[in-house]
């Protein structure tokens, strides 16, 4: 009972600190929610649409106008301008008034009618890979559809009946099926990864100062000379932050699921277990950094070194298999790597424990390594100066 009473008084003290410090309160309670809405808001459309396109139609025939209409009718594109020279098109793209230029060659209709073939070019501003790959794929789709129709017309011109022409054109078709994110939605892809990263950052920011602030304010001296054990101190602080941040995590999950409609196809219990385990790992790591740091600035700097590259090397955006060996090694020691893998698998792929257990096992191993290390360091700091009987 006495043990629990001391743990509770530490928890109460930590809660009072959080609620009375405006910045800490904002970070702990609101930051994750605000960032979730902000980032979700960026990607809420789900896909890139109405991208500006410039047309350079050198043919000016019914066929070329049909091609132009194909782009006009697509929700992915907005025709902003018609140009009459390459230089004009270059200027428009350079100024980013359009991201893509459609170049229809001269004599397009004539060449097609005379079996000479023709090529429509798409000039894409590739300085933004996300936008350019989207635009190029969609332009392919537009031209591809038109191409099939034109080919059929040509074949009918050769005397092949409509049905045979259709069968010839569709003899070998290619269809891609997009599992797990069939609508190619960016909000589904990015928001899971980003909210996981933000969540990690916020836990680290909040917890990193928990021990180091005691040292800065010299309250650490009083804790050393008290009858508190290292275990009671760590339990008190850990439970406080775990409860606060896990509730935060639940709210973020609810927002992701119900507002941004990110699917949760797997077990809710397994998803929550993964989130809880990740919270404990980050919390323990942050406490360790806090104990090792001499002041708040140092604690935050060391956090930043870990959090800044975390998402990039986790394999969430750039594939893990394509990382250099050294970065793979770095990725392998980051908790975020395993959390995002498990989270993505459970939420988007509906994976069960049989699939994600390796990630959970590694997260658990991290807790098993970090927690005793943190307790040892706190104990060493406390026992170094304690009076003895």
């Amino acid at each position, binding site marked *: 009972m*006495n043990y629990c*009473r*001391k743990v509770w*008084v*530490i928890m*109460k*003290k930590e809660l*009072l*600190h959080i609620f*009375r*410090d405006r910045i800490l309160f904002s970070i702990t309670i609101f930051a994750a929610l605000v960032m979730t809405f902000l980032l979700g808001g960026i990607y809420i459309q789900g896909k890139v649409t109405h991208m500006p396109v410039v047309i350079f139609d050198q043919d000016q025939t019914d066929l070329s106008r049909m091609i132009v209409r194909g782009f006009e009718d697509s929700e992915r594109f907005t025709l902003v301008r018609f140009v009459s020279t390459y230089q004009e098109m270059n200027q428009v793209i350079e100024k980013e008034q359009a991201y893509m230029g459609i170049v229809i060659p001269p004599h397009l209709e004539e060449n097609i009618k005379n079996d000479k073939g023709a090529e429509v070019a798409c000039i894409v501003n590739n300085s933004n890979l996300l936008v350019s790959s989207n635009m190029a794929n969609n332009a392919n789709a537009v031209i591809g559809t038109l191409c099939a129709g034109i080919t059929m017309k040509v074949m009918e011109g050769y005397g092949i009946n409509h049905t045979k022409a259709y069968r010839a054109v569709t003899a070998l078709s290619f269809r891609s099926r997009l599992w797990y994110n069939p609508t190619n939605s960016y909000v589904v892809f990015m928001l899971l990864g980003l909210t996981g990263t933000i969540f990690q950052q916020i836990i680290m920011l909040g917890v990193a100062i928990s021990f180091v602030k005691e040292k800065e*304010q*010299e*309250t650490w*001296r*009083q*804790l050393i*000379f*008290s*009858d*508190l054990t290292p275990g009671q101190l760590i339990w008190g602080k850990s439970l406080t932050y775990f409860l606060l941040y896990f509730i935060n995590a639940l709210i973020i999950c609810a927002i992701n699921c119900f507002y941004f409609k990110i699917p949760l196809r797997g077990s809710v219990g397994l998803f929550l277990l993964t989130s809880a385990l990740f919270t404990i790992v980050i919390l323990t790591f942050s406490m360790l950094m806090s104990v090792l740091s001499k002041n708040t600035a140092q604690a935050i700097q060391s956090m930043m070194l870990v959090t800044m590259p975390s998402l990039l090397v986790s394999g969430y955006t750039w594939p893990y298999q394509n990382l250099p060996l050294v970065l793979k090694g770095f990725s392998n020691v980051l908790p975020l790597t395993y959390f995002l893998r498990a989270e993505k698998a459970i939420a988007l792929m509906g994976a069960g424990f049989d699939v994600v257990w390796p990630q959970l096992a590694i997260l658990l191993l991290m807790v098993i390594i970090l927690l005793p290390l943190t307790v040892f360091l706190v104990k060493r700091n406390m026992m*170094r*100066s*304690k*009076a*003895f*009987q």
Partner: protein
Amino acid sequence: MNILLELKHVYYRFAKRGEWLFKDINLCVAPGTRTAILGTSGAGTTALFELVIGLRKASQGEVKRHGKIGLVTQNFSWYQDLTVAENIEFCRVINDGNPRQVEQLLSLTTLKNWENTRAQQLPAGFRRMLQVVCALVREPDLLVLDDPTAGLDQVLQKKLNILLEQVNAAGTAILIFTSDQRMIADCQQVFYLNQQCLLNDTKAEESEDKKEAWL
């Protein structure tokens, strides 16, 4: 239990090859006694205080401590954003203190009407009194104070002295690090920290030059 604090031939310096800050310090604090260590600003009283309580490790020699120590540091070392009552309650629980004693201590100090005031809003002198109350809540065998009268007006200094007298009379040993001559009045032992050495009353008298230099 005979000796609460013992320093035997203690030497201390900040860096391994630096100059000695203290040389051959010998100190004994018995239960129920009141001891003062007087030093001018810059003499190293705070460093000696930290050595005594164990925040610094002696470069040579032995430091032995027995029993519970209560600390009153020069800077406020409790929680600025907690109220007087919250600080005391926190201190009491983590030190298994007696709840009845808290009421008694509050009435002896000026803090009775300030219970719901946050520590950061207290006048400086009251913050010092809060530190003393928090230190006493754990019923220490030895109360160690670093410059306790700094920032206190005469009224508060008197109140502090009365409190320390009562605490001492109840059996708690007191060790004060101070530059205030008025604090040595009721002390059984007085040491002067002078030129890296600790001189007791007798030795201080013998080396008048050193004492005058200190004064």
